């Protein structure tokens, strides 16, 4: 065994009480970091999972139709502009005309050549699945009950790759072919329907509100009921075949959106940018649509890092102070080692190794303790469906980062004592140590 390791390990063994003290400090610190990270990561993962349980990662839609003023009106409005940089009127005596450009009503429109776009976006790096859909407002009636719904026409296999409704069925099957409809548990309850019951779905022609529009209707049969864990979705969603929705919304052969699933959920914004540039369509990532959620997650991260920072500081100071005491206690021995020919670099490494070893051992013990705390906490409370109220996310990355951090802390904390030991003058250390 190399000299430095031999001496360092022997000193750790010799000073059992001090070693135990440092080890306890590191272990407690690591266990707090592991526990806290597992808890916060678990909550965040669960939150994101719940959010993305009913949302595609990226949604492609056609750009809104913007009302454009006619050329003559445009020049008049330029005349009417109060801006100082506006060009001077050609004719100062001409009357100014104030114009208001109203936002045009958005009729449900199909993505042009959506099949080509679908094939294009499927090849974009990071895209796992793509699914066309026709989605718009509609209403569902049964007997006297009528509810506004979000009617979504989907290609079943493609859609399930985006949102796995099949795994969330509480009754029936995911069968949207023909006149089949799969609805949320809340909607089923509001309408009082069960599997096999008939529903009337109605959609205004073109899917948008507007006067004088006809309503297209269809009778459908409830083939499945799902619970996606979100009240809004459970109360409003009705899933039918793409063809059924195309008929109801009068979009023959069309698709109003293309929905994507990406490999890395936090990569969705980048993928959305790539896809928008490629297709010229408007691409909205889940991150953009849930900006508030992301702010909340970042705040949680900040709190986590803040707590970790103070734990790290406390543990570092603890290790450093115990090692400094150890150096003071061993001054004479260090002087003897130096006198018999031990280079100062070797003395330095003896104490660095002690810090590192304590860090590694502390990370192992601390990871174990942190895991036990986490699992205990997870079992403390559970939701009605049996899932834990406080889910924890324990993974190899967490253990690896905690171990690296603890070892780093051990080494950094040992630097000052080690340098102090290495700088001891052997004659003084032997005489006064």
């Amino acid at each position, binding site marked *: 065994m190399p000299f*430095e390791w031999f001496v360092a390990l*022997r000193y750790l063994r010799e000073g059992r009480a001090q070693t135990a003290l440092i080890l306890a400090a590191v272990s407690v610190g690591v266990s707090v970091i592991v526990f806290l990270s597992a808890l916060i990561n678990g909550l965040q993962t669960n939150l994101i999972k719940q959010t993305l349980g009913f949302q595609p990662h990226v949604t492609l839609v056609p750009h809104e139709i913007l009302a454009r003023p006619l050329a003559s009106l445009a020049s008049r409005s330029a005349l009417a502009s109060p801006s100082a940089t506006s060009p001077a009127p050609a004719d100062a005596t001409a009357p100014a005309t104030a114009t208001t450009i109203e936002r045009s009503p958005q009729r449900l429109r199909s993505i042009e050549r959506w099949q080509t776009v679908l094939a294009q976006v499927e090849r974009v790096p990071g895209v796992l699945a793509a699914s066309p859909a026709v989605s718009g407002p509609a209403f569902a009636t049964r007997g006297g009950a009528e509810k506004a719904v979000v009617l979504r026409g989907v290609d079943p296999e493609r859609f399930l790759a985006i949102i796995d409704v099949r795994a969330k069925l509480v009754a029936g099957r995911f069968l949207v072919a023909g006149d089949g409809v799969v609805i949320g548990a809340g909607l089923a309850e509001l309408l009082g329907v069960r599997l096999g019951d008939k529903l009337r779905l109605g959609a205004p022609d073109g899917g948008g509100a507007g006067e004088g529009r006809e309503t297209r209707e269809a009778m459908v049969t409830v083939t499945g009921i799902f619970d996606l864990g979100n009240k809004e979705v459970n109360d409003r969603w009705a899933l039918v075949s793409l063809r059924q929705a195309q008929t109801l919304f009068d979009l023959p052969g069309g698709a109003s959106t293309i929905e994507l699933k990406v490999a890395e959920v936090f990569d969705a914004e980048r993928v959305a940018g790539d896809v928008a540039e490629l297709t010229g369509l408007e691409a909205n990532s889940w991150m953009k649509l849930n900006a508030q959620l992301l702010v909340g997650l970042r705040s949680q991260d900040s709190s986590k890092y803040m707590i970790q920072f103070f734990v790290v500081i406390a543990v570092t100071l603890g290790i450093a102070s115990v090692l400094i005491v150890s150096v003071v206690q061993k001054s*004479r*021995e260090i002087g003897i080692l130096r006198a018999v020919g031990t280079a100062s670099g*070797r003395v330095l490494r003896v104490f660095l190794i002690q810090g590192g070893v304590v860090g590694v051992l502390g990370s192992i013990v601390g990871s174990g303790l942190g895991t036990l705390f986490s699992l205990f906490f997870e079992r403390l409370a559970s939701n009605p469906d049996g899932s834990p109220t406080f889910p924890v996310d324990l993974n190899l990355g967490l253990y690896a980062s905690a171990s690296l951090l603890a070892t780093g802390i051990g080494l950094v904390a040992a630097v000052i004592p080690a340098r102090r030991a290495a700088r001891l003058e052997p004659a003084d250390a032997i005489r006064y140590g």
Partner: protein
Amino acid sequence: MADAPAVLRVEKVVKEFGDHVITRVLHGIDLELRAGELAALIGPSGSGKSTLLNLIGLLDRPTSGRVIIDGHDTTGLDDTALTGFRGRTLGFIFQFHHLLPAFTATENVMMPAYAGRGFPTKAMRARARELLGEVGLGDRVDAPVTDLSGGQQQRVAVARALAHDPSLVLADEPTGNLDTESANEVFELMRRFNRERGTTFLVVTHDPRISARCDHVLEIVDGRLTEQADANDAGAKG
């Protein structure tokens, strides 16, 4: 012995302490030890014995003058080179043995060679055990040094000082903390190694019975080497 090569030459060594108020402890010391000598360094407390020993042991640097060991002028060596040179060339025996309590007798004896090389070898261990046998501790080689008596610990210290075959062994009152019998045993060990192996010893002592048995006595008073007498003269004085 007069024809033997010089193991140690100290030339005009001056040592001063202090930054503002300067205290000169050694005033131009000159001395020479030849291979195979066993010399005593005597003098009253505060005369500069330990300071001189630290300079010869390369544990401190002179303000001026030169310390030449085995023909090598150590003046220009940096700390790393000085440490390496010290580890290879010098052996130390301290008054309070100064063994490392966390280690066994064998490990303590191996320590200078182990620290110098960085890795242990079978030869190191065998040599340490052999030396412990020679100092009468063959049955305690694996004992923690804290389990040994004061006399036994000092014998381990003698073995440690000799483990790497140093050119010069510096002993700072090696018997000062021992009873008469143990002190006699330890000195006899040094004398035996000196005669049998030709190891050169410089022994700082207050004990006239020890200095009387040395080949050569150096006396230091007020930082000046005032006298170099043979052992019989010193013994007569003591």
